[in-house]
């Protein structure tokens, strides 16, 4: 066990840090650009220099970096305020699924442009009738010659409005039990018959969408996995999703809360000297550090060749509620001023209140807290599933409401 860099790792860290220092876009370069444009500019620059998706095969634009090198890179890049969230779904979730199931010519065609940020991908899974019970989805695809014709509706599709491609799970056989009748495709988001409608969130922003499919045609060659194997393929995506979302450490953190607690007063003394404040901060730190070191341990497993397993659910399960509670705690420290959401009056407002307002979404996206807890109970601890009313019966006979 050694939490320090080896000489090779230290050298790698230095070369990453040097390159970042010289190449992170300057204020002048990003003047007048929106976040998406800045993200694309930065991603392409990294790609051209060999710093994008560094864990991937060089044939697809990576540099075959080890799991540990990927962490080092992330640690160094995190020192800068550069946007990356636009590519998380494509690079973190769709790409591993493509690598597991797509044909070689597809990998050559799509992965380099995913790595360079020139093409953005989205994930079309959830439906109005299938959220936590994802396999209850109803969007259907029917075979027509060498093509499939898709009809139905997806929801909560992050980034559908700026995505070039998407992965979609659909029902290809409603006469068999729900998990057995699904198939998985990737599609061109500009295909005729796709209609995208933004959903306004409680934050006022619109990050995700409803996506309607009306006679959308997709070639059979864009199917990933066998017909009827869509659920297994989806699980590959979902496990990578939990790893990708859990690893994100944006928003408030204990360090920021400590700075704040040093500045504000309780009973005439800095809040940081209050024992109740200390107890809360310590508990948040135990979770924050515990998650960080858990992710390091996972990396050691991944670098031995393990694939992300259900134990990765812990990152999101702990990280999302912690973000909500820590943001709420920071607001409490500020008393009434904690509710000010105006960056001209409070420089921390965007970070703290942004975290508080965004956290409810994070606790739901990619599997709710409750689903994550079930995954740990059933797939890590091996406890039995609750009785399922739809088990073993044809999807068409499943009661709905």
């Amino acid at each position, binding site marked *: *066990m050694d939490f320090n860099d080896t000489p090779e790792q230290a050298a790698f860290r230095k070369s990453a840090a040097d390159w970042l220092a010289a190449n992170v876009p300057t204020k002048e370069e990003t003047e007048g650009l929106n976040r998406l444009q800045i993200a694309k500019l930065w991603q392409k620059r990294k790609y051209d220099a060999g710093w994008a998706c560094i864990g991937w095969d060089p044939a697809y634009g990576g540099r075959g970096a080890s799991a540990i090198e990927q962490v*080092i890179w992330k640690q160094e890049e995190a020192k800068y305020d550069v946007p990356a969230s636009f590519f998380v779904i494509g690079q973190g979730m769709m790409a591993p699924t493509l690598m597991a199931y797509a044909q070689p010519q597809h990998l050559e065609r799509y992965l380099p442009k995913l790595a360079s940020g020139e093409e953005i991908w989205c994930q079309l899974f959830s439906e109005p009738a299938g959220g936590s019970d994802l396999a209850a989805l109803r969007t259907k695809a029917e075979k027509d010659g060498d093509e499939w014709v898709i009809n139905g509706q997806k929801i909560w599709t992050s980034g559908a409005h700026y995505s070039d491609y998407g992965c979609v799970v659909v029902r290809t056989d409603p006469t068999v039990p729900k998990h057995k009748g699904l198939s998985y495709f990737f599609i061109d988001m500009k295909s005729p018959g796709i209609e995208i409608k933004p959903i306004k969130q409680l934050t006022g922003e619109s990050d995700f969408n409803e996506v309607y499919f009306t006679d959308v045609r997709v070639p059979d060659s864009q199917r990933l996995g066998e017909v009827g194997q869509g659920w297994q393929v989806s699980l590959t995506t979902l496990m990578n999703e939990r790893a990708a979302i859990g690893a994100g450490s944006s928003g408030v953190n204990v*360090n920021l809360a400590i700075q704040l607690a040093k500045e504000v007063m309780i009973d005439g003394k800095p809040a940081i000297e209050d024992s109740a404040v*200390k107890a809360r901060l310590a508990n948040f730190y135990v979770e924050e550090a515990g998650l960080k*070191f*858990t992710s*390091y341990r996972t990396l050691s497993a991944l670098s031995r060749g393990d694939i992300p397993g259900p134990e990765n659910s*812990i990152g999101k399960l702990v990280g999302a509620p912690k973000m909500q509670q820590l943001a709420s705690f920071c607001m409490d420290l500020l008393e009434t001023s904690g509710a000010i959401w105006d960056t001209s009056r409070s420089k921390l407002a965007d970070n703290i209140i942004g975290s508080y307002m965004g956290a409810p979404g994070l606790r739901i996206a990619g599997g709710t807290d409750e689903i994550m807890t*079930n995954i740990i*109970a059933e797939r890590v601890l091996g406890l039995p599933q609750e009785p399922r009313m739809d088990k073993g019966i044809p999807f068409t006979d499943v009661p709905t409401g």
Partner: protein
Amino acid sequence: MNFEFSEEQQMLRDQARSYLTQHCPTTLVRRVLNNRETHDADLYKGIAEMGWTATTIPEEYGGLGMSHLELVVIAEELGRACAPVPFSSSVYLAAEAIMALGTEAQKQAWLPKLADGSAIGCFALGEAGGAVTPDQISTSIADGVINGTKVPVADGGIADVAIVVCKSDGGDGATLALVDLGQDAVAKDNVQMIDFSRGHSELTFNGACAEVLGEEGAGWAAVESLMNSAAILFAWEQIGLADKALEQAREYALGRFAFGRSIASYQAIKHKLAKMYVKNTLARSNAYYGAWALNAGASDLAVAAATSRVAAIQASLFAAEENIQTHGGMGFTWEFDCQFYYRRAKLLSLAVGSEKQWQGRLVDGLAASA
């Protein structure tokens, strides 16, 4: 970077687990607890013969000269087994203190005996209720003579040597004393604790002979430093215990049926066990870092120790408490083993500073470096 125990350390773990499965079954813990014995002397002898008591003691003093990474592996297994032995007092506290502070003569006198288990050490800090600070200590040492009373002292009744925290008028307010307990001027009185399988005592020093350990007036800094390493070593025992309690709860829930199905299929139980798993995992990951920081003498050792300790206290108490709850009425009986973990978890959570104390130390450490 490498975030795993080595193959040799894993082998040591397997060896420790299989030894304790054979030589420290729950029937042994039950016997010690039923009879309110101070410890199981044969088990401690066996453990010493395995070399565990000698792990981090340097070879020139009869030890194995291994690292703390090996010691935490053993600590975890002792925690799992709820072993009724004075290992923590003798190894994590007394031996660590003498290694860190002892003169050559003091090391020669005690380390070989602590290493081979022929002597047992203990650590005497508190005198009354509440958090201990130097100004609350009245035990004193002057001209090689110690006076005062310490209570409760883990393993004080069976120990041969004690590290005693005394007051000091100068310096940081404390001086450590090394006291041979085999003298008439030391009185030992049993103190029954929440965990009947771990003997504790009140030690009274009536003008007993004592030597200063370390520098006079630098005792409190020494205690704080000793507490950092102890916090990490205790944390691994607590994690072993917490995992065992989770396994016990899981096994019982799977086999217990209510309303026509296994209670392990109800979300109320599944989520409880998943929450135990989450707490145990966070505690283990923090203790990984703690173990490394201790071994490497990292600059953030104080924060790493406090993080390990707070996480381990929370995980072990939760697991021990909810293990009983999962068992229902049977968990509350004397007959079931759940009580071992409940008693031991609470005792360990108070052994080297409470959760509240360590939360304070953690945040003070973070605030100082932020």
